[in-house]
């Protein structure tokens, strides 16, 4: 396919530097092309990464694009940069650009088939990328999984804080409910354990019941949400913020006082079922359902309630029911994320679902952008990544991240990609 580069004006074109020209030539690459490029890059890293790392005097393959390494040992900056250039930037750019012709044709072909098939193809590629990338180290694997869990959590809180426009502080509480409910289910049925004794079912059956455990976790969180919602949706305003804050403290304190589930020491020994495919599938389904929810009539009603509740009521929106459903829906997904989290870190304590986690979740959703699925993904991925990357700085990390967030809030008060639809057709479409 002949690709035409739109030329705005000659003078601008003449003054365009090296980078803008590269940017313009890469603008023709569709999502499919990028995925294939990244796949090539991670395969290259998988095959020659170790050798290249040795050649560049790097201790091992840099886990997160060399950033952590550079912060620890600044002298390795040239090597790390070269590694990232050789392994990631060059192959991705080259493959994506050179394959742009046929990937565009493929993207056109995929536009003709049903959208779910096209999405599945892209998701399959994305999964392949993640799978190969996380082969390198367990650390990467865990980072990738925790990021995907964070995406789910951020999306779920965006339904409430972004789409509904209330300020909910109880998400750590919902996550705790989900984590504990699903853990109780799996430990009770499938695991020989000091809290509940012998397993009732053989452990080999377990992974098939993992979705049920997650749904139980989500349902527990949704029930908790009902406790918050009934008193707080009688009035409008900041009421939910306080009730949900109190609820978070209540959940934490209640779990600390229930000795059969470990009390303040927490609950450990969950089976390691949050594997990469499971978490990936969970995240994909979560994005799909939440995106459908916010684009449905219900989602539109939710936006109407946020913008003007009285007007929405006049337009026959059942505001109370809408808010309740949305709140429980958001809590459900927080619970599911909690279930994944519990089966990934495999030890949950009530202390970890506190103010600290609330601050992190709020940072993610407000950084990425309110009222936007893309924004949630961007926020969760970037804050988690920044947080991992800055780990060598120890406590200065918690000065830099808030600073970034304050700047984002001052210059883009609703977040980076706020109020934008997640248009899957446009994202996956060909760039003609």
């Amino acid at each position, binding site marked *: 396919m002949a690709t035409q580069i739109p030329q705005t004006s000659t003078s601008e074109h003449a003054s365009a530097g090296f980078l803008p020209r590269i940017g313009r030539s890469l603008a023709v690459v569709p999502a499919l092309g990028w995925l294939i490029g990244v796949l090539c890059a991670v395969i290259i890293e998988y095959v020659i990464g170790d050798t290249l790392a040795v050649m560049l005097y790097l201790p091992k393959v840099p886990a997160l694009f060399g950033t952590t390494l550079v912060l620890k040992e600044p002298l390795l900056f040239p090597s790390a940069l070269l590694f990232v250039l050789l392994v990631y930037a060059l192959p991705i750019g080259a493959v994506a650009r050179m394959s742009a012709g046929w990937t565009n044709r493929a993207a056109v072909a995929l536009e003709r088939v049903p959208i779910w098939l096209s999405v599945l193809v892209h998701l399959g590629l994305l999964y392949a990328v993640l799978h190969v990338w996380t082969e390198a180290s367990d650390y990467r694997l865990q980072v990738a999984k925790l990021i995907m869990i964070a995406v789910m959590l951020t999306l779920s809180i965006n339904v409430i*804080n972004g789409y509904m*426009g209330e*300020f909910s502080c109880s998400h750590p509480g919902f996550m705790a409910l989900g984590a504990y409910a699903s853990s109780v289910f799996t430990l009770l049925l499938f695991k020989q354990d000091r809290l509940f004794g012998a397993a009732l079912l053989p452990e080999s059956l377990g992974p098939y019941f993992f979705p049920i455990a997650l749904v139980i976790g989500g349902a527990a969180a949704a029930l908790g949400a009902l406790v918050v919602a009934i*008193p707080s949706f*009688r*009035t*409008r*305003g*900041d*009421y939910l*913020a*306080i*009730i949900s*804050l*109190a*609820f978070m*403290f*209540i959940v*934490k*304190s*209640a779990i*600390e*006082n229930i000795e059969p589930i470990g009390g*303040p020491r927490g609950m450990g020994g969950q089976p390691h079922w949050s594997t990469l495919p499971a978490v990936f599938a969970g995240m994909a389904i979560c994005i799909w359902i939440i995106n459908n929810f916010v684009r449905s009539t219900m989602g539109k009603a939710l936006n109407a309630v*946020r913008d003007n509740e009285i007007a929405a009521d006049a337009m026959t929106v059942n505001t109370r029911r809408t808010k309740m459903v949305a709140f429980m829906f958001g809590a459900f997904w927080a619970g599911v994320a909690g279930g994944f989290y519990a089966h990934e870190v495999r030890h949950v304590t009530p202390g970890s679902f506190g*103010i600290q986690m609330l*601050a992190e979740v*709020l*940072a993610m959703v*407000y950084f990425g952008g*309110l009222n936007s699925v893309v924004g949630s993904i961007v926020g969760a991925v970037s804050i988690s990544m920044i947080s991992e990357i800055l780990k060598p700085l120890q*406590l*200065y990390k*918690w*000065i830099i*991240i*808030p*600073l970034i*967030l*304050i700047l984002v*809030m*001052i210059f883009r*008060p*609703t977040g980076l990609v706020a109020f934008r639809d997640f248009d899957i057709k446009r994202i996956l479409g060909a760039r003609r």
Partner: protein
Amino acid sequence: MAFFLQNVINALQWGSFYALIALGYSMVYSILMLFNFTHGDIFMTGTYIGFGVATALVALATALSWSMPGWLLLVLTIIIAMFLTSILGVVVERVGYRPLREAPRASAAITGLMIGIMLEYGNLAILGTQRYNFPSIIETVTYDVGGVFFTNKKILIVGVALLLMIALHQFIHKTRWGMAMRAMSYDFQVVPLMGVSLNVIAPMTFAIGSALAAAGGILYGMAYPVLDPFMGILLGWKSFVAAILGGRGSILGAALAGFLLGFIEIFTAMVFPSTFRDLIAYSIILLILTFRPYGFFGQAHSAQLRL
């Protein structure tokens, strides 16, 4: 009976901290209609500033071989620390809240939260992880009245807290500045048209709130001398709940609810195991708010809420 009275005294002391911090939340809320989530950490910083001032004053007195009486030292510490912390409050307002006055209120809450985190970790970065002890400014004297034990510090804490609250009440109801603040809390969009600048009133609110938090911090340091950069989190959030319980924007309500929260917590710990304290305290608050959604003295705000 003696046991009961003993706990009443403890609850009064514990409640004074909540009340003093809750006042700051309540004042900012009444003017700007937003939650100042930095306030707990301003309280923490105020305590550290008080610690620094007190240590410096003690060192100065020793160096010049004055025999400064304890009460004078305390008064000086409180006044200087209140002044310094109010500057911090103004800076927080200028940096974190003023640029976001037109933004959704939740964004301002986020900047507040983030400034709070920066204060915590900034403190940790500057002073290190070692714990400091608040200098014992006045000698502890224990009185025994019919089996009820109380120290002069407890009386002092409750007394100073009440004094500050009365002073605040007088300021708000008797002075022109207080009148401007009350007007602003009535409608912060129209009152600026009458010649009262929000850019004066808002920093002033932050300054007064922070000063009260600093006073609360010094009193707290007298009762519980071990300082910790994260001490403001739990106390701050609990006082925030108290401020809401009192009725958003109501000074009297915030003070009363602060004391009430102190009473609930102390008496729960008296009857139940102390681990149930938070659980029962918050459940009671949840119940109260279910039946009185606007708190004790709040009224339904008609102002258009932005997000």
